[in-house]
């Protein structure tokens, strides 16, 4: 996307955002900007090797603001590794994984720009949902009111004072999403967010992500549930063996009368063969 479009998109989103200040879904008007010179997410020649095994192999892609992009691939394809590299939890062997042109750790107030949900089990089971979020809110130097706003946004107020160990998988996913939304970020990076959600939860997730993208936010979502993804994403990146094998625009598939599942299976089966 040209730099101009980046700026226009972000500016429009910021003005819309100011009208919906505390609904917990929109990104921060104060920092709601995309660097004009950089993609929201920019992965360039990214590789990661673990003791002789190549998990990510010369992967490159970039994401435009205002879009939801699916990140698809079979188990072990390198999806989660790529997301961890983007978020600075792992160091690339070579190449770059950048957000707004910077490494995650070099972003000023990263939680205000990027929200992430990586694993459904990233909670201390004896801590309450509210305390889990308060810890993150304090560490990220965010206003205390954000905790209540995101609890409301993910419809978890009723269970906020229960220990997370008592939560269902779906409730833990909602709590994880609440954590990702705490800083009203511009980018959401979600690893298998629909895991454990019931049909109503999947529907809720879909509308939440669509509202976020319509406000100008950028979403990268990995998933195995192709049917869910097909109805949620604008574009799908398919990786296999750590390499990008295809970029699929959902609108093109629909026009051709094909399903994402057909396209995905053909691509990943061919790659495996």
């Amino acid at each position, binding site marked *: 996307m040209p730099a101009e479009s980046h700026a226009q998109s972000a500016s429009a989103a910021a003005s819309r955002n100011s009208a919906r200040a505390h609904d917990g879904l929109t990104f921060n008007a104060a920092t709601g900007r995309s660097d004009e010179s950089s993609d929201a997410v920019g992965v360039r020649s990214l590789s990661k090797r673990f003791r002789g095994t190549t998990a990510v192999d010369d992967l490159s892609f970039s994401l435009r603001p205002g879009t939801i992009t699916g990140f698809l691939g079979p188990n072990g394809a390198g999806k989660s590794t790529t997301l961890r590299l983007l978020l600075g939890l*792992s160091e690339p062997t070579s190449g770059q994984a950048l957000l707004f042109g910077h490494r995650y750790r070099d972003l000023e107030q990263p939680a205000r720009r990027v929200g992430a949900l990586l694993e459904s089990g990233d*909670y201390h089971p004896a801590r309450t949902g509210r305390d889990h979020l308060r810890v993150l809110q304090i*560490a990220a*130097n965010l206003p205390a009111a954000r905790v209540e706003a995101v609890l409301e946004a993910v419809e978890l107020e009723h269970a906020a004072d229960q220990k997370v160990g008592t939560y269902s998988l779906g409730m833990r996913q909602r709590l994880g999403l609440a954590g990702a939304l705490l800083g009203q970020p511009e980018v959401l990076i979600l690893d298998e967010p629909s895991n454990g959600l019931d049909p109503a939860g999947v529907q809720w997730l879909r509308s939440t992500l669509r509202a976020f993208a319509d406000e100008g936010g950028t979403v990268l979502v990995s998933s195995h549930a192709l049917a869910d993804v097909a109805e949620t994403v604008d574009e799908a990146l398919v990786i296999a063996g750590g390499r990008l094998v295809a970029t699929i625009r959902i609108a093109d598939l629909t026009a051709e009368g094909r399903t994402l599942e057909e396209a995905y299976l053909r691509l990943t089966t061919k790659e495996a063969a």
Partner: protein
Amino acid sequence: MTTQLRAELLKHRSTPTNLGLIATMAGLVVFAALFHGLTLPGRTIEAPDDQLKVVFGWGGILGTMFAALAGVLSVTAEHRFGTIRPTLLANPKRERVLVAKVFAAAIVGAPMGLLAGALAVGAGVIAFEIRGIPLSLDTGDYLTLVAGGTVAAALWAGIGVGIGTIIRGQVPAVTGVCAWLLFVETVILGSSDALGAVGRHFPGALGRAATGQDALLAPGLAAVFLALYLLLAVAAASIAARRDIV
């Protein structure tokens, strides 16, 4: 830094882990001081040095060990439950998170050392009163015992954070700390004079020396040496903290 410290303190407060550690520590200190004070032959616990080491000293030993465990668990629990990921997403500056964890553990560890020392003194005095054995320590000795135990527990809690950062696995880190403090150092200290002379500068022995249990090493100096171990642990941990999070 301040915000990360506040977040780390909230982590300590918001799970029952530390309460469990404190309750266990308190029970063991009272049991050890009472048991030794009530059951050992009178002649073996009449001298000041014997009263200090055999009865009252349990406060320092158990206080530092449980404070160390609180420090270890504040890191290894993050890896065990995966909360290290949201922690480092909220604040990706790993050195700052490490330093905040060290300070938070010290703030939690100090009162644990204070409580352990006070309980040991209280239980020991009761045991001696019951048996009619005269107390041979003076007020300064008791103050050194409790104050030194407080400082040693705070420093050892920080060392525990360093150990937990280097050894991320909860079981090996916890068993390693317990084995070192309760077994390895004791074996080395009890071996040849040469090894014993080295061993009394090991961190566990320094913790005891900080409570006045080493006639050849002043408590203040022992605390300074222990603080150097803490700096060493933090330096090593800051390198270890750079490893990938999986």
